């Protein structure tokens, strides 16, 4: 394993230290438990939006902490859900009296730990709501299983709900809005290489030079299937088809297209893939109203990409366009 680190056991702590000095204007970082909060938290009278999960998906979530997006993020160890006390500490630091919305990616660990945190917070009379995002179409959904993973849709969810909270929406409104985003967003990803988790020291899986993993998550889990590597046109079509047909998105829908790099895939390839996706969506009669292209929810240095589609309406477009001021996402005043 070759990484720019000192010791696998201190990676997250040291990385957060660097993030703190790099973005002192935007956020404050606490260690043990690790919590990242927006510099001006708590914002009195404003709903606090809190998320978290294992580290290794940077810029998610810490890079989205700031005005118009997340109030706080709790990074766990690499690929490991943080613990309830970290979440509690985040909640108590950003609670502005208007309630707290927890954005939880649907993984057993994240769900169980946030569940406990929510119970603890409720016991302290904080009005807490939890929204679970599960947008990964690669996983068959079923009430008998852990269900679908939360992936790319999380970024869009955090941006849109954060904008609503910034605008003064109530906790009920934020919760309903969040559910609407969850109901209208779908994603799927592929991997060309596997990430190496620092404390594991070897790749999470191995792929030949002519193979790819299809339907991967963001934790180095192998995908649903292994397929021969294919040209970008086919590869992107595979993702577009799976995502579009799942919701389904239909002729005339207005959508936000999010073309995401899993970390190791460079922009030159990502823009190429994005162009193909735009063409394919146009052919299906979908109107791409907004787009996001870049490495926003990653799996360490894994090479690969994911496509996320969100069905838009006027309100969602407005909220997407609202100013956001974070380390990784920034526009508007």
């Amino acid at each position, binding site marked *: 394993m070759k990484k720019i680190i000192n010791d696998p056991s201190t990676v997250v702590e040291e990385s957060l230290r660097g993030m703190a000095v790099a973005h002192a204007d935007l956020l404050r970082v606490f260690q043990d438990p690790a919590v990242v909060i927006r510099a001006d938290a708590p914002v009195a009278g404003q709903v606090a939006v809190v998320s978290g999960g294992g580290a290794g998906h940077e810029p998610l979530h810490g890079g989205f902490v700031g005005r118009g997006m997340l109030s706080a993020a709790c990074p*766990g160890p690499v690929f490991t859900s943080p*613990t309830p006390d970290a979440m509690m500490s985040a909640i108590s630091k950003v609670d502005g009296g208007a309630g707290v919305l927890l954005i939880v990616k649907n993984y057993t660990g994240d769900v*169980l730990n946030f569940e*406990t945190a929510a119970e603890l917070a409720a016991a302290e009379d904080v009005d807490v709501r939890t929204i679970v995002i599960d947008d990964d179409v690669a996983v068959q959904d079923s009430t008998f299983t*852990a269900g679908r*993973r939360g992936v790319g849709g999380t970024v869009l969810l955090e941006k849109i709900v954060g904008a609503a909270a910034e605008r003064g929406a109530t906790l009920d409104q934020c919760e309903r809005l969040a559910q609407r985003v969850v109901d209208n967003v779908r994603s799927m990803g592929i991997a060309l290489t596997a990430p190496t988790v620092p404390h594991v020291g070897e790749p999470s899986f191995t792929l030949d030079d002519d193979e790819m993993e299809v339907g991967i998550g963001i934790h180095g889990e192998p995908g649903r299937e292994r397929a021969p590597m294919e040209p970008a046109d086919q590869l992107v079509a595979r993702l577009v088809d799976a995502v579009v047909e799942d919701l389904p998105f239909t002729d005339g829908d207005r959508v936000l297209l999010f073309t995401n790099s899993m970390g190791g895939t460079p922009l030159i390839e990502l823009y190429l893939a994005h162009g193909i996706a735009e063409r394919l969506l146009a052919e299906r009669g979908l109107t791409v109203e907004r787009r996001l292209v870049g490495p926003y929810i990653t799996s360490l240095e894994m090479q690969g990409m994911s496509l996320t589609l969100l069905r838009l309406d006027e309100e969602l477009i407005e909220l997407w366009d609202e100013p956001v001021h974070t380390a990784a996402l920034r526009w508007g005043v």
Partner: protein
Amino acid sequence: MGCETDGVVAALRAAADVVVAHRDELVELDRVIGDGDHGENLRRGFRNFVAAVDRSTPETPAAVFKLLATTLISTVGGAAGPLYGTGFLRAAATIGDAAELTPETTVAALRGALQGVVARGKAEPGDKTMVDALTPAVAAAEAALEAGADLPELLTAAADAAEQGAESTIPLVARKGRASYLGQRSVGHLDPGARSTALLLRAFADVAVKGS
């Protein structure tokens, strides 16, 4: 003759040693069908527990399990943290303020642990989780109690059953936890959580046997 607070602490310290010793094995099992952190997570939790018992001195067996439970919940994270944490919390609850663990209270504690894990994780036998190790362990312990076994015999029966239960997860398709994302590809692999459950029960049994 049962097991008093010191014995429980000794058993959990031994369990901690086992977890540390098997860290890499659990990481490797989890790397294949999960995300490779199970051994790392449990080691972190049990090391914190050992540090905690070194500082405080729990009065009762239940207090020891409660300390373990809260430590796991607050330092392990992932799925295993809340699951094992809830399990040990329920175990503690069943024991109440009894000064020692008898075969009876031990069976009750094991049953409580299983109920706690199931209540939190909603897994059923056959879902390829730690439940597949814990369920037969509880049944074996109950049978041993029927048969008048003492604590070492009872825990040994539970550990044996847990090991078989863990092995039984190999052919299963995971329906819960991270491995469930693999669908059919999860077949042919031992579930890391089932393995760690078997390791913990074996550690308890070994201490009991040595102690007797």
